[in-house]
């Protein structure tokens, strides 16, 4: 029953969007009626999504999708997250978020009515494309032809609270760019005043903030769930999310800097189209099964071709409009050796090169396999040695960029900065020399600290310190950059100064980690509702009374017959001690301990960036 409701409302919503699209040419109607229809289609899409969720919650195995991906003794939260833990359901989530964005956009005030309507019509077109994709290739409401009373389970690796919320947040980022795309296209068609730039800024900041949160959650999940001790693997799916993120960053910066220059406006339109194109391209790469990764969904070729077609139509349409309707007037940019505009241009060029480098690395295996029928994989070494050096000049520049002038080459208090930079370099050099010296470690630490220091100097020397909301809005760009600096320190320390220790242990053995004695207390196995768990219990720092208990082990999920590893992590402010329980051989357990310094800084930096994103939304 719920499946029927879900399917019908999905189809009705697509129908309404057809009607709205045609309204541009055939049936004309008033603004109120138009907005009413947009909202109705959003509500119907949500109804469809919640019907599927209901089927998951009540374990309605007459729905084939629920049967394939759920199990009655799963905890409630994973029944709910099971709704988007599979290809069909997650596409429905994608469509639902698209319509939520349209819903909220229909309430936007202070913009030209016909411009708003055109934007929403483009959204309707996207809704139709993705809606048809779901109905014809990925219908989550299919009826199960076999009568069963139990389902096949959810991929156990996805049974994790962090991952339950990761897809909705990430999609809010990806799909949020649809509205930026629609705004840019509508802007090209109407070519009116610059009001649309402010609207676009708000929405692109919202999308970027969501995308940041989604990527960080996925990365944090990989850190504690995959049990490899790292948090970024240059997995194709990670790359796919990173591309619109970097392009989105360029977009946000351009939107904040634009002051009526035609060249930058043109560039903004280009980036807006690019961001959403990269989002759709990412969807294509993952859902067609062209790339394998931890995100593999069962795929078939027809799905891949359909979504490739959507990608082609959306991107082709976007760039074609861009080609035909480009703003003709052109006034020169006020480019100086170092002023705001030139910093912006450099920043954008670097980000686009970084995006293209990642794109090349991601699709290179496809090109090679088509041309030479060989399967290769492009991984960490390529990306680390290309993307990171490309970004370094940008990092150097971002520390001072917010205080650069529009008109002149002058930097206020430039002596202060030079002095600070020299002192800092010497300090970091000394610090690196006494710890084991590593070039990349030195560069990373210097950059991170430099960004933080320069931003703090800029705040103190350029503004009057006041504690009120307005002040926080003014210093927001510096705060965002401090977040980046903190994240860079975390990234550098955790990846370069990571320490790995291996042990073969019996229960009751003591061993030394980081100067502290650790007791391998015992191995425990228990039966949980939907899995069996095997845990090694460790007591960290047993010489003190306040010793900490760490559990590391594995879970075995009988329904899907999978084993997941559960790392035990002791979080301290300056390091994570990361325990992985390996296999048992000759009555000894293999235990790996990783010491990851300053990992918490990465998450702290990301939180600061997201905070800045939200503050910037409210700033005009």
């Amino acid at each position: 029953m719920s499946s029927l409701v879900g399917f019908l409302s999905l189809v009705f919503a697509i129908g309404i969007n057809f009607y709205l699209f045609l309204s541009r040419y055939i049936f004309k109607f008033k603004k109120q009626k138009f907005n009413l229809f947009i909202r109705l289609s959003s509500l119907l899409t949500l109804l469809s999504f919640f019907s599927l969720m209901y089927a998951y919650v009540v374990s309605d195995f007459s729905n084939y999708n629920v049967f394939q991906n759920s199990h009655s003794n799963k905890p409630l939260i994973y029944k709910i997250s099971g709704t988007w833990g599979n290809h069909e359901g997650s596409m429905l989530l994608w469509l639902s978020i698209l319509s939520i964005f349209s819903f909220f956009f229909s309430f936007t005030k202070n913009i030209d009515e016909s411009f708003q309507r055109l934007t929403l019509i483009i959204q309707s077109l996207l809704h139709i494309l993705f809606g048809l994709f779901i109905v014809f290739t990925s219908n989550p409401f299919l009826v199960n032809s076999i009568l069963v009373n139990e389902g096949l389970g959810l991929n156990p690796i996805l049974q994790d609270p962090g991952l339950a919320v990761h897809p909705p947040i990430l999609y809010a980022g990806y799909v949020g760019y649809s509205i930026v795309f629609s705004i840019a296209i509508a802007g090209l068609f109407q070519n009116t005043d610059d009001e649309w730039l402010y609207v676009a800024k708000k929405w692109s900041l919202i999308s970027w903030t969501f995308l940041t949160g989604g990527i960080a959650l996925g990365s944090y999940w990989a850190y504690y769930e995959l049990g490899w001790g790292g948090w970024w693997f240059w997995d194709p799916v990670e790359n796919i999310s990173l591309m619109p993120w970097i392009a989105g960053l360029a977009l946000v910066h351009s939107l904040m800097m634009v002051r009526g220059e035609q060249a930058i406006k043109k560039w903004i339109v280009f980036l807006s189209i690019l961001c959403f194109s990269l989002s759709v391209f990412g969807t294509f790469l993952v859902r067609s099964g062209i790339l394998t990764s931890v995100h593999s969904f069962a795929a078939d070729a027809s799905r891949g071709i359909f979504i490739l077609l959507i990608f082609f139509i959306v991107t082709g349409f976007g760039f074609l409009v861009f080609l035909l309707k480009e703003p003709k007037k052109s006034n020169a940019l006020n480019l100086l050796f170092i002023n705001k505009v030139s910093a912006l241009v450099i920043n954008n060029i670097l980000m686009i090169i970084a995006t293209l480098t990642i794109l090349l690395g991601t699709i290179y295996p496809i090109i090679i396999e088509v041309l030479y029928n060989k399967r290769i994989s492009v991984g960490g070494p390529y990306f680390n040695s290309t993307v990171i050096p490309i970004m370094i000049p940008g990092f150097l520049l971002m520390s001072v960029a917010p205080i650069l002038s529009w008109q002149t080459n002058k930097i206020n208090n430039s002596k202060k900065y030079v002095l600070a930079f020299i002192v800092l370099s010497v300090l970091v050099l000394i610090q690196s020399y006494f710890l084991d010296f590593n070039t990349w470690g030195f560069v990373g630490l210097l950059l991170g600290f430099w960004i933080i220091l320069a931003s703090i100097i800029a705040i103190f020397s350029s503004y009057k310190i006041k504690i009120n909301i307005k002040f926080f809005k003014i210093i927001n760009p510096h705060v965002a950059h401090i977040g980046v600096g903190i994240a860079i320190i975390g990234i550098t320390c955790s990846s370069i100064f990571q320490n790995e220790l291996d042990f073969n242990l019996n229960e009751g053995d003591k061993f030394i980690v980081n100067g502290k004695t650790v007791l391998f207390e015992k191995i425990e196995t228990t039966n949980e509702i939907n899995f069996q768990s095997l845990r090694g219990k460790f007591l960290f720092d047993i010489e003190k009374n306040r010793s900490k208990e760490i559990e590391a082990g594995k879970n075995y999920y009988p329904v899907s017959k999978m084993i997941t590893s559960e790392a035990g992590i002791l979080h301290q402010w300056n390091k994570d001690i990361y325990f992985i329980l390996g296999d048992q051989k000759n009555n000894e357990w293999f235990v790996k301990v990783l010491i990851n310094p300053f990992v918490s800084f990465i998450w702290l930096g990301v939180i600061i960036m997201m905070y800045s994103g939200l503050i910037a939304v409210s700033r005009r």
Partner: protein
Amino acid sequence: MNRIFILTPLIVLFVICIFSLVYLLSGKDPNKPPSALLNKDVPIFESSSLYNAKDIIKTKDIKNKKTLINFFASWCSPCKIEHPLFFEIRKKYPELYLLGFNHKDPPSDAKKYLKDDGNPYDFVGVDSDGLIALEFGVFGLPETYLINEDGKIIYKFMGPITIDILKNEIEPLL
């Protein structure tokens, strides 16, 4: 110059789409990566027969004969779909040794299933706790492995086999 700059995205789009399309149409399926076990020795296993607990099969028992190993269960609906194909294989290749592993099934259900749908296997081994499947790296049921005379895994398929798979991928190896 400006024109070229604006045309570039469209050209890149075309190139990417063409390569992707060729890739998709070429029928390559990266979702079925070659098993880590491919061309390796078959894992060591030991299992008792579903019908007689004293009747044991071990790895060395399948040496010197081509063997098709199929993991199945009565609760697995895709297994039901591929089941009739094993009778065809049986008929066409009487030399081939068909070994079924009954995965995590109550014996009574498994016996009823093989009674209702027929039993194409030469031997049905019990894998009640799923340990044998674990050794083989079974991802989900059904899964099928082809072992050659030297005891090496030469083919693996995840999911129900179909007539096409049988004709195009398995038969050339037999």
